[in-house]
């Protein structure tokens, strides 16, 4: 049982989280790409632990399989063959999955109360019971991580094995990693390890080695050590400077009060709450952004939702 007192942020919720238990250390997973052999043990361990079984797919002419994240593949290895200027070949293999941002765009964007939470230890977790399948978490994510399941129209992603971590263990992918490429500990310790590894790589001639802990999302609880930190894009499109889409914040800033005005008639206490405490997120951008610019058809998703049985709704 995750200790609810350790939730520091909750989607679509303005009630402030409990603050007293401040002495929770932040955790982090460190992925040292220079040690990755692309064995996919992490993919298998993830599926095994989380009781997931994706489809048996096809080979599309690469080692990548499944070829993309899905609701049942919360991590995938992405292989990229890169020829350097001096003719050397590098086979860069990156474990892709949720970065557990300190400022999670998914949580910011999520309209379903409690469907996305952030714990004091930094883990960003999806509570599928509350997920309405709108997909805003996907547009909110600068790393394109969450995936909606075609089976239940709910969104899924890596939980950093919050159940294991809460029980005092490491995530399944970390434990299984054969080559010590994935490590786990406090964020402070992982930053120390990362700095040491960056030094090792520089000594081996990788002048641009560095830590990937992007500031644009407040830092992450999944970090990479890259031999070419100057060009993260080389690692199958890892974004160089990820930020939450400005539209996410703008949209919430506009629609929340309107929404409240419409349904607040039956729940005015909430409006009072909004007025007195303000929205959970401070709007930063222009107020007249078009929500459809997010590229996600919320209308269709809603209609889909209408077609589903509702017996389960409480």
């Amino acid at each position: 049982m995750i200790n609810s007192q350790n939730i520091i942020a909750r989607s679509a919720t303005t009630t402030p989280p409990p603050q007293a238990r401040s002495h929770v250390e932040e955790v982090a997973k460190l992925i040292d790409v220079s040690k990755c052999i692309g064995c996919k043990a992490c993919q298998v361990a993830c599926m095994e632990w989380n009781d997931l079984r994706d489809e048996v797919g096809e080979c599309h002419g690469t080692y990548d399989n499944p070829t993309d994240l899905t609701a049942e593949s919360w991590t995938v290895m992405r292989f990229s063959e890169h020829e350097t200027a001096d003719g050397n070949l590098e086979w860069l293999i990156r474990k892709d999955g949720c970065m557990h941002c300190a400022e999670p765009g998914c949580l910011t964007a999520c309209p379903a109360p409690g469907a996305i939470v952030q714990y004091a230890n930094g883990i960003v977790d999806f509570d599928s019971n509350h997920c309405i399948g709108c997909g805003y978490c996907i547009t909110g994510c600068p790393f394109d991580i969450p995936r909606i399941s075609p089976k239940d129209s709910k969104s899924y992603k890596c939980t950093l094995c919050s159940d294991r971590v809460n029980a005092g263990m490491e995530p399944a992918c970390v434990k299984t990693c054969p080559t010590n490429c994935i490590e786990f500990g406090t964020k402070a310790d992982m930053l120390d390890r990362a700095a040491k590894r960056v030094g090792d790589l520089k000594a081996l001639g990788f002048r641009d080695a560095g830590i990937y802990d992007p500031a644009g999302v407040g830092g992450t609880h999944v970090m990479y050590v890259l031999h070419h930190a100057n060009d993260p894009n080389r690692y199958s499109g890892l974004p160089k400077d990820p930020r939450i889409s400005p539209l996410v914040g703008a949209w919430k800033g506009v629609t929340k009060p309107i929404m409240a005005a419409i349904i607040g008639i039956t729940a005015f206490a909430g409006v009072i709450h909004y007025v007195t405490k303000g929205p959970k997120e401070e709007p930063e951008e222009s107020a007249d952004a078009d929500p459809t610019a997010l590229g996600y058809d919320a209308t269709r998703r809603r209609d889909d939702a209408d077609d589903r049985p509702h017996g389960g709704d409480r």
Partner: protein
Amino acid sequence: MAINVTRRQFFKLGGAGLATSSLAVMGFAPEPAEASIRQFKLTHAKETRNTCTYCSVGCGILIYSKGDGAKNVEQNVFHIEGDPDHPVSRGSLCPKGAGLLDFVHSDGRLAYPQVREAGSDEWKRISWDEALGRIARHMKDDRDANFVQRNAQGQTVNHWTTTGFLAASGSSNEAGYITHKVVRTLGMVAFDNQARV
């Protein structure tokens, strides 16, 4: 305070374009907040130490089975992960080892003896008694017919070359040992295991 609003009602209230805004903005939720995302699943499972039987690294594994070993329980393996005490693997497993659970429960596992009769295009389930009886009969008939006590040069050879045996390097030493003991005692020489290939 609990105002029950189903998702459908919520969407209808909100209308198009607003459907995804937040009810909690108004201070209520469609249902009470639950913080339990997923329960830890190993708490009281039986843990058995074993060794991965794929490659020859010999990684230590912990097999978790449902049931605590009580008489009335049929243990059922539901999770396998690495043994952190193991000096080589230190808790790690490769993608094969990490997927051992699906080997144990593979649809391809056989469950009872079968025979495919000569010329037939199908399997037929048989009892162990019938299977072992028929196999022993075949073996004895062939051994008695083809065992060579002396070769053409009159040398004692005492071997049986017309039935061969491939042993499994995925099986235990104990299975290997008793197999060798039986196979050589019968006089077989066409005897190998995966070390040959």
